[in-house]
């Protein structure tokens, strides 16, 4: 395939992906009136930050962002703690039936949320956990952990065993080996999977809308509520969406830098 075809393809793909987001950014800077006329009035004189001012004063959205931060950060940290140790064990220890464990872990990914939501709701509601952080974190972990385990296991598998053996010979205890050798070279993939876990939970809507009420509503739920029964505050809705996507974008940019870092390169020749 020639280079120009690739470039054209990439341009189309970028426009396709970025288009809706650009539209959201533009919309968030326009008053409701300009948005609801046909065709929308896009003249620059109309640009205003009113929508952002309004949503920042909206206690529901602020609370939603706060809740999302707690849920997503907790999910990411727990996913890394549980996922990295599980992946390391599956990669390095002779766990009986480890292949089967990995397949079962992957198989949990096969159920669409809609299939399990009713039994899940019943379980969580009978446990008295509806509208709690724990419910959301546990549910998010259940579908994020398998991916984290698979990704990290692949990474740990690629770390040459000799590095750990060399550390053992140099006199490092197993914990020192993990802390001083394995962990530093694993930072990029740990960071990448952590960001992945954060973004997945930050954006999640379906489980959140069913498992939360007033106290633990996350940002996506709060944003959705700008579309009311009688009026829809489109401008504020997109402004909230733009605001909520900022952490995701920042993380994604850092994530990209880290994932490209060929850290293990040079560990082994060949």
């Amino acid at each position: 395939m020639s280079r120009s075809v690739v470039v054209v393809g990439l341009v189309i793909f970028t426009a396709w992906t970025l288009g809706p987001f650009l539209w959201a950014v533009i919309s968030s800077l326009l008053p409701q009136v300009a948005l609801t006329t046909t065709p929308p009035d896009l003249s620059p004189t109309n640009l205003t930050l009113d929508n952002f001012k309004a949503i920042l004063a909206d206690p529901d959205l602020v609370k939603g962002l706060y809740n999302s931060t707690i849920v997503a950060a907790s999910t990411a940290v727990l996913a890394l703690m549980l996922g990295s140790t599980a992946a390391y064990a599956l990669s390095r220890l002779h766990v009986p039936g480890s292949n089967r464990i990995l397949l079962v872990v992957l198989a949990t990914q096969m159920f669409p949320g809609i299939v399990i939501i009713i039994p899940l709701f019943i379980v969580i509601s009978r446990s008295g956990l509806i509208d709690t952080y724990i419910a959301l974190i546990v549910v998010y972990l259940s579908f994020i952990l398998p991916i984290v385990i698979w990704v990290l296991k692949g990474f740990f598998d690629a770390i040459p065993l000799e590095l750990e053996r060399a550390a053992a010979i140099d006199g490092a205890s197993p914990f020192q080996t993990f802390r001083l050798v394995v962990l530093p070279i694993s930072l990029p993939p740990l960071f990448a999977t952590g960001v992945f876990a954060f973004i997945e939970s930050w954006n999640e809507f379906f489980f959140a809308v069913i498992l939360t009420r007033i106290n633990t509503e996350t940002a996506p739920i709060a944003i959705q509520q700008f579309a009311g029964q009688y009026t829809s505050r489109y401008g504020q809705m997109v402004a909230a969406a733009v605001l909520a996507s900022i952490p995701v974008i920042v993380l994604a940019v850092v994530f990209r830098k880290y994932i490209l870092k060929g850290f293990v390169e040079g560990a082994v020749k060949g």
Partner: protein
Amino acid sequence: MAEVELIKVTKRYGSVVACSELDFHINDGEFVTLLGPSGCGKTTALNLIAGLDEVTSGQILMDGAVVNELTPFERDVAMVFQNYALYPHMTVAENIGFTLKLRKRPKDEVRRRVADVAEMLELGQLLERRPRELSGGQQQRVALGRAVIREPRVFLFDEPFSNLDAALRVRMRMEIKELHQQLKITSLFVTHDQEEALSISDRIAIMRNGWIEQVGTPQEVYLRPVSRYVARFIGSPPVDILTGTFEREAGQIWYRVGAARFEIPESIVPTGDGALDLGVRPEHVLLGAVGQAVTVAVIQPVGPVTYVTVDWMGGRLTSRVPGIVDVKVGETIHVSLAPEGILYFDRESDQRIATATG
């Protein structure tokens, strides 16, 4: 510095026997090589001695004390790995000094000893680089430095040169030998390269399918291999094996292979039954005016010597001739076997049969 002794050391992985009743002894300050093809158990043996793997049965002793239960660190061994296994996130200095840092040595002592080792291995300019910024040979030296700084009781080398190109390999071989002459630390070196083993070792242990076939000095294993396996493994080009029969005619003994026959002095023909194969190394295949008439098949000049391969109906031999030879492919020449170089192998057992001369 230490003596190392293996007593009936066996390692099984499930039903697979990687090492079978290994019995050998490395003297204090000696340089011993484990030589064998890949999969013969030599790296497993090294890992067992290092303490990176547990023996299934048997004992490993260092200076007379059983070390089976000790960690690699407690055994005080240093190891150089085939792929170097440098820590990618550390600089050269940090890699070399890591073991001292773990022992909580004072910072200035670490710095001084790292500098000493770096000077010895000509790494002085590279101390702040990371492994990926180094060439293969430099990485190899860092790996050596990491082992040397320890001043361990035993050095273990796991095919340390196999990732280097040929010229560098020969140079590193010399450097390791020189290093050993300087430090006189007991060393065990694993390789599949017979020339490397011959050139570097005080003694060589040749391994086959998990057991040790022969232990001896380079001369012993070259001149008096215990079996056809050892004879074929040591030496390049390899020993030629002739499969034929003895015949007696007019008071002379001949060994017939296909259309050719070679005269053998009676005094060196082994007594006893059983069919024998003959092994002859290239330096003992003599070209000249006398002997069996054969045809020149291949001529390989390699500088100081030329290898001339001759053939006849039913067999082939390669001869080593000094300098350049004045023969052409297709030409007929005469070949005889130097009596002192003939090796006899029992066709059934592959064991070498000794003659009156040894």
